[in-house]
Every structure is written in C-alpha cells, then in structure tokens.
C-alpha cells in the first residue's frame, strides 16, 4: 500500500513518475480517438490494427539486428509496427471492398494471420540466438518495469502530439461521424478525413504497444468512450470525459503495476478502466442505470397520483395500493378511503384539467400525440394561454382554474 501511495504521488523515483504520466497522456489520447472510432462504428477495426503490429515489430528487430546490431531500438520497432499496422488496415478495406466477404470476416482474417506471421517471425528470432530479444515479449502484454528514460519520454511526447492533432481536426471528425454526405457536400475530403482518423488510431496503438501490449491496447480505445457515453450526448463533452477516464485509468493502472510485483501493466490498466466503466454505468446522471431508475420512479408517481385524483373526482374507490399510499402520504386521502377536503378540491381541478386535455386531443390529435407532457402536467403550464382560453370557451366552462390555484401535485 505504501509503495502504491509513493507511486501515485509521483515519489517512487523519476522513471516510475514518468511512466505514470506517460500512461496518463496515452490513455487520454487513446480515449479521445476512441470516441470517433466508436461513433463511426469501427470499434473492432482497432483490434485488427493492434494485432497486425506484431510482424512489423519482429521484422524491424531482425532488420535492426542485421544492419545495426541494435534491434531493440524503440523508434525502429515502432516504425516497423506502424508500417505493418497500416498494411493491416489496407488489407481489411481491400477484402471488404473487393471480395464477397464481409467486414467481420475481413477483420478476423487480418487479425489472426498477421499475428500468426508475427509469431512465426518471433520463433525465428529465438532460433537466431541473438541478444536483446527478451524485450520483445513485453510488446505482447506490456511491460514498463525495464523501460528506459528516453523511451518513456518518446511515448509521452508522441501520445501528446497525437492528442493535439485530434483536437485540431475535431470539428471535421464530428461531421464525418454524424453526416458523411453533408461533410462531402460541404467541401471536405471525406476519404482523406477517414484516412487521417485511421492514421491517428494506428499511431496511438503503436505508441501504446510498449506500455499496454498489443493484445490489450484496443481496450484503451474502446472502454473510455463507451463509459463516457453514459455521461453525455454532446461530442466535445464526450471527448473530454473519455480522455479523462482514459487518463485516470492509465495513471492509476501504471501506479499499481509499478508498486506491486507480478502486476502486468496492460492488464491492470484495463481492469482499472473497467472499474471506471462500471461506475459510469451505474451512477452517471445522463444515461446511468441509477438515474434511469429514479426517472422511472418519478414518472410512475406522477401517473399514479393523477389517476388516483381522477378516480376520486368520479367518486370511484382507489383500489391500487401504490396509488392509495401516494395519495395518503400527500394528505389527499383519509384512512377510510374518502378524500380529505384538499383532496376533493384538487380532484375536482384535476378532472377539469383532464377535460381540457381531452378537448385538446380531439382538436389537435397529432400535436397531442407528440406531446411528452400530455395529461401529465396542468394544461396552463404547457400550452399558451390563448389556446387554453379557446378550449375553455368550447367546453363553456365559466372559469377554468388558474395556474396558481391549481398546483402541480408534485
């Protein structure tokens, strides 16, 4: 526990602090890009991208070893990864567009055969018996323990640049996700935009290989946006929240992994992200489960109270237990099932209100049908006064209850 606090307050050595900050920047950028990948419904393409990096890493190692005797150089390995990931993306598109096989099949094919090729190359490297190959295993599941200072700086800076590039093109990407045709007619080059988004995705996947590993890096682009979706419907806010969730997950995950033995960085970051996802799903006010349950309960109350008052106005007994309980709690119903004086007067007013609503529905059925508040709130609160006046004249009610005497039951 002590080690964890040291790591999370950035006091467990310079390298650990840098790794944590780097993972946070990585998480933020990946989460932000993931938003647009999610909105374009291409979530699983990122899975193909990440698996397709393996042969590139292995080939770059072999080339580096043969030419410069320095296969482990991170920039070289990441360049190889980026090239083979880009080839993977092109292959998915080519299979989808030029054969009868669908996108899912294309993704699965590219993902598994590229990965298999990488595996074969890794075993070739093993049989070459050269030094420095131990670091390659770290690309599968992520390892930050032996990371060099320069590598951590490279990752942090590159992730920052990719995040900034996304911010610059955010408006265009939003347009691309929601209305591709409008974007095209507005003079944007849709194809180039789509390619740019994929290039940014490939970039962030490649940058994240060393920290999170190629099997799990895709989680950084999937989980934060899906979690952020519970909090808001607006794209800029969504992007900010996804970036925040990604950053928190990367930071805490890297800190935990740095402070305990046998905690693989990638796995821990993903578990932290999933925890944040579950929290979002439960408590987010916009679309969370708890908020939805509360909204449902409030709606139920309004409907039950109104139905109860209408029954009272028609001198019918209130038999439904929830309705009776709500009426009693609001002091509208006595223990013996008779209305209290307040209950009786409110029931009368509600009945008149209902008459007006019914009249409105007959006059303008389409508008009434589209109205969310139809017969749920007093009509004066919803419709303009002149409409209400004309309805009253039609029904020849001498004086409708005015808005301040008829208070909404809730």
């Amino acid at each position: 526990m002590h080690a964890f606090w040291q790591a999370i307050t950035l006091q467990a050595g310079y390298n650990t602090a840098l790794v944590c900050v780097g993972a946070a920047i990585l998480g933020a950028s990946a989460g932000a890009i993931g938003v647009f990948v999610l909105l374009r419904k291409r979530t699983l393409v990122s899975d193909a991208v990440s698996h397709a990096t393996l042969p590139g890493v292995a080939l770059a190692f072999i080339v580096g070893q043969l030419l410069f005797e320095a296969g482990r150089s991170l920039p070289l390995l990441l360049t190889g990864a980026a090239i083979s990931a880009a080839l993977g993306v092109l292959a998915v598109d080519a299979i989808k567009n030029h054969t009868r096989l669908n996108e899912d099949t294309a993704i699965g094919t590219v993902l598994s055969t590229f990965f298999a090729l990488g595996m074969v190359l890794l075993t070739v490297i093993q049989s070459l018996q050269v030094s420095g190959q131990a670091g390659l295993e770290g690309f599968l599941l992520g390892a930050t323990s032996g990371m060099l200072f320069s590598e951590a700086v490279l990752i942090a800076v590159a992730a920052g640049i990719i995040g900034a590039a996304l911010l610059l093109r955010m408006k265009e990407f939003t347009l691309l996700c929601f209305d591709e045709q409008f974007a095209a007619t507005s003079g944007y080059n849709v194809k180039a935009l789509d390619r740019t988004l994929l290039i940014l995705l490939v970039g962030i996947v490649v940058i994240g290989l060393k920290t999170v590993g190629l099997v799990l890096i895709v989680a950084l682009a999937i989980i934060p946006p899906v979690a952020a979706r519970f909090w808001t419907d607006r794209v800029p806010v969504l992007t900010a929240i996804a970036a925040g969730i990604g950053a928190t997950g990367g930071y805490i995950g890297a800190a935990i992994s740095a402070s305990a033995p046998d905690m693989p960085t990638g796995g821990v970051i993903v578990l932290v992200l999933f925890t944040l996802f579950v929290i979002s799903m439960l408590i987010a006010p916009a679309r969370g489960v708890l908020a939805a349950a509360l909204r449902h309960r409030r709606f139920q109350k309004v409907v039950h109270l109104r139905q109860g008052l209408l029954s009272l106005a028609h001198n019918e007994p209130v038999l439904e237990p929830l309705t009776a309980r709500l009426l009693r709690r609001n002091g509208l119903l006595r223990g013996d099932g008779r209305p209290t004086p307040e209950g009786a007067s409110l029931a009368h007013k509600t009945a008149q209100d209902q008459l007006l609503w019914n009249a409105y529905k007959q006059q303008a059925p389409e508008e009434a049908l589209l109205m969310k508040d139809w017969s749920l709130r007093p009509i004066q609160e919803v419709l303009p006064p002149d409409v209400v006046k004309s309805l009253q004249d039609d029904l020849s009610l001498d004086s409708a209850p005015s808005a301040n005497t008829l208070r909404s039951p809730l």
Partner: protein
Amino acid sequence: MDIFLQFDFPSILLGVFAALSCGLLGNFLVLRRQALMGDAISHVVLPGIVIGFLFSHATASWPMLLGAGGAAIVSVLLIELIRRLGNVEPGAAMGVVFTTMFAVGVVLLEQTQTAGVHLDVEHALYGNLESAIWLEAYSWRDLFNLSALSALPEDVKLLAGVSLVLIVTVLAFFKELKITSFDPLLAASLGISPQIFGLLLIVMVAVAAVAAFSAVGSILVIAMFICPAATARMLTDSLKIQLWLSSLVAVFAGVAGYLAAAFLPPMLGFDGSVSAAGMIAVVAGLLQLAAMLFAPRYGVVWRRWHLQRSS
C-alpha cells in the same frame, strides 16, 4: 520413420483436429456475420482456463474445460447485460467485455507464476503444439493397436473426441443450422427456433475454442475459425460444398503448416524450428489469399479478366 511417428505425427493430429473442429463451425459464423464471435470467445475463456488450471495443475483437463465454459457463459451474460442496461451497440459491448476478461486472465496468470505453477503467458497466446509425443508408437501398424492408441497424449484424445462430437452435431442439425443462418424469419415460421440454434452454435464454438486452445493458443484459434470457411466461401455458393471444402482446407493447412514449420527452416539452413501453430495459421491465410485472388467467378483476378473481355 519412428521419430516422425513419435514426435511429429501426434502434433500433426493436434493441428488437424483443431483446424477441423474450428473450421467446420466457422462456416456458420461467417454466414451469420458473427465471425468475430470466435475472436471474442477465444479471448474471454482465458480466465476460466487459468482458474481451471489452478485446480487441476494440468493442461487439457476437465476442470479447465469447465472453467472455460463458465467464463464463456459469464461473458455472454455480461455482454447482454451491458447492452440492455447501457444501450450500447453490440460491437462495443463485446469489445469492453472481451478485453476485460482477457485482462483478468493475464493478471491471474502473472499471479500464478509467483505460486510456482507452470502455465505461462506465451503458452496461452501461442499454444503448445510441439509438446505432443507418442513414445509407444513403433510403426504405422500401431495406429490400429488399441493399447498403443490409448497411450496417445491426453490433448490429442480430448481434441479428437471433441471434433467427433462437433461433426456429429453439425451433421445431425445441418438443416436447422442452415435455415436459421440464412433466413431466421423463415426458420421461426417453420417452427425452428433461431434463438435455440444460435445458442447451440455459440456453445459449440466455445467448446471448439477451448479444446483447440491448448494446442494452438488463444489468438490462432481465430484463424482456424475464419480462414478455411472464408476460403471455401470464395469458391462456392452451396453450403454443403462449402462445408466439405473448408474441412479439406483445414486439414491441408494443419498438415502443410506443421510440415513447413518443422522441415522448412533446416532446409533453408536455419537451426531449429519455427512455431508450428503460427505456420498453420499462415498457411490458412495464404490459401485464403489465393482464393480471394484467383477463385473462379468470385476472385478479384477472375472478375477483372472477365470485365476486360466483355468491354
């Protein structure tokens, strides 16, 4: 020849059975646009396999199969729960669940290493095709000798049994699987429940993924599911022919992939061998590439050629 029979033959059997059982089911996954279900399931079974392994301390054991089946069921429920509660699109819900389950498996694996148990991460990702040996075999006649056959490695026997069960099930329910895959509405109106056969297919996929897992690893299972079926799909329109073709492709990839991995590097002057499971998947991928390019009627090259001739 003895050495081939004792060391190479059981590995080839493993590869062939794994490719066959996955490849057969892959046909239906590809038809239903559920190709990535194989991907998701092969990832989510990892924590179940690790927990099963902790109980039994052996690969290819019943606790491992049970654990994997449990994990598959848990994740199907989780995906459904997240979709319902969160209004999330299916692909994203699947992505959330399979990465999380795989992460749980990876963290558990690393923890077990401290406990001194041997099941390492590479094994889970790459499989362990080459470890199968059949020391009791002295000649090809032992293939018909029950006592020698019973000495085959547990992996091989398990996978052979699973393949047999899957083949029989697919044959028995061929009509139902076909109708529910092509036209769920028609199936429902004929009294064949698409839900039940959809679930049956998922269960079979999970069983095949788990059984093949210890041979070829969790990621190459995906190649086994997709490549043979996709290759066959490029070549024919008839499902029956597609099933035969995909089985043929799977068996060929299993044999040729292993042989290439074991004997190609020495021929090229390399010392040692390369990953057989990886090579099998590469061969399957190359076959698919060839089919996509040169298949009659549907291949890219064929269509270009016809376009030029007609214009």
